[in-house]
């Protein structure tokens, strides 16, 4: 097999110099080794889970038959889904508001919009705890999925400003003349928004939705403070399982979640690159 002749690395080809290769490799190892071992050992037929004893699916079976774990999992997915829908709507509206209008107090609004992004999670968590305990108690004993309302509200509050940031970046490339043209041709405000602005925003909306979904699915701290005894999410459940003991069941459930998020990211990236391809052709 003929190999390409090795050329000396150019002066700025840092990736081809061995010290940097070693650092990059070690960093990736540091980032991935724990996750990969976690995934591999979810298939290991041993409770002590350190020496390889043989391949098994039994912990997946156990995890799937653990009804409280599965309930927590479906709660998490439901919360993430509703939170994504709300965050995309609110985030897109917020972005359009800040992009399109001049109004008194705009700087204050922009500043407060950035607050949920920078405020430490723990502060937001306790604020939500107090809010739902004293100011606006969420009714107890609501049927599923309405019992998840408090958590959904809390998640939306910290996700939608992220969506707004993403969508606003996308708005910067919008040609306002298109909007004017639509209006000149007799389109109503609503129609212009829906048929001209929204299609342009689509990649931003998808990226924002993906971000909101993972932020919600990922959140532990704020949920920990808003969740009641009957509204357990997946991270809260895993946390309480970890408090008792480290079991391969947790490995199995975690693996499912990792695969799910990786798949979602892949879909998101694929959609984005397809969109860019289409634009490049057009």
């Amino acid at each position: 097999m003929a190999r390409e002749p090795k050329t000396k690395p150019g002066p700025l080809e840092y990736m081809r110099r061995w010290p940097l290769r070693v650092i990059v490799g070690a960093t990736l190892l540091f980032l991935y080794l724990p996750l990969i071992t976690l995934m591999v050992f979810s298939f290991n037929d041993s409770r002590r889970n350190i020496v390889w004893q043989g391949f098994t699916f039994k912990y997946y079976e156990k995890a799937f038959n653990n009804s409280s774990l599965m309930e927590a999992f479906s709660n998490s997915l439901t919360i993430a889904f509703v939170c994504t829908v709300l965050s995309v709507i609110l985030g897109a509206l917020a972005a359009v508001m800040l992009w399109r209008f001049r109004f008194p107090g705009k700087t204050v609004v922009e500043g407060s919009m950035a607050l949920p992004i920078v405020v430490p999670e723990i502060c937001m968590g306790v604020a939500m705890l107090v809010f739902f305990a004293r100011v606006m108690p969420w009714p107890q004993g609501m049927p599923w999925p309405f019992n998840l309302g408090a958590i959904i509200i809390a998640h939306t509050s910290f996700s939608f400003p992220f969506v707004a940031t993403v969508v606003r970046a996308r708005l910067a490339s919008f040609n306002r003349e298109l909007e004017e043209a639509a209006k000149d041709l007799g389109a109503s405000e609503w129609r212009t928004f829906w048929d001209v602005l929204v299609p342009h925003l689509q990649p931003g909306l998808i990226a924002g939705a993906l971000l909101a979904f993972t932020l919600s699915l990922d959140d532990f701290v704020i949920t920990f403070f808003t969740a009641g005894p009957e509204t357990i999410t997946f991270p809260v459940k895993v946390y309480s399982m970890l408090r008792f003991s480290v079991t391969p069941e947790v490995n199995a459930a975690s693996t499912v979640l990792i695969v799910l998020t990786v798949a979602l990211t892949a879909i998101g990236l694929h959609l984005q690159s397809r969109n860019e391809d289409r634009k490049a052709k057009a």
Partner: protein
Amino acid sequence: MEQTWRQARSAFAAIAAPPLVWLLLFFLIPLAVIWAYSFGENVGPVTIDFTGTFANYARALGPLYLGIFWKSILVAGLTTLLCLLVGFPVALAIAFAGPRTKAWLLLLIMLPFWTNLLIRTYALIAVLRENGYVNFTLEWLWTNASGVMTLAGLQPLGEFEPLTLLYNNFAVVIGLVYVHLPFMVLPLYSALDRMDRSLMEASLDLGAGHLRTILLVVVPLAAPGIASGVLITFIPALGAYLTPDLLGGTDSQMIANVIERQFKRANDWPFGAALSFLLMYLTFIAIAIQALVQRRSERRG
């Protein structure tokens, strides 16, 4: 051009009302309530009087809690420094890699960021615990080394003592670095990627070595990126709750753990509220410093 809201009142109302109402009702009001509580007093098991007292702040600024604040700042600072030291070369390598390698490396750096924080922390526990993989590998090396030494006619090494890598400050810092590394690499990468490379080439042509070029040319040029990387690593590390809770020992409590205790176990909400607001003020100070650094480096540039 931006419209004034007067030009399209109904459109403005329809667009602005939902996010503004949501932000006010479900974010600003909860924070305001906490702020009001921080000046309150516990008078019964569930009743809190708003007395306008500063006693909670006075207590929070006493030596015990000031020490915890200081410790949290140190731990977050050390985490940020380690992330910078590891992240800078990684970002440099990515910025100067070929387009295909670059895309893959960026994806690989970002992917853990999308993975659940709790799962990542849990994965780290499995690696670091006393019968975890790190100690397992060390034991294997130790026994082999011991065997080799016996063969060479030397005294064999003693019994292998597993290292205590978990439930101490070391584990907290490692955990925080593990979680926050992508936060540092991405802004550094975008700063390095936008940098004018001809300046580096000029420096190399004029005979400066790589290290000198990086320290004297690249670092000053990438200063805004470094500042924002430092900020978005430092802020979440300062308020970290989960990592010190799961990986730390009894002496590695950070400020977030103390706040949690006030709200859940100690049931001293006014004091917890005061601590929360002090943490928020610290965060704002960090943001203000970053903005100052950014403005100074822009003026120079």
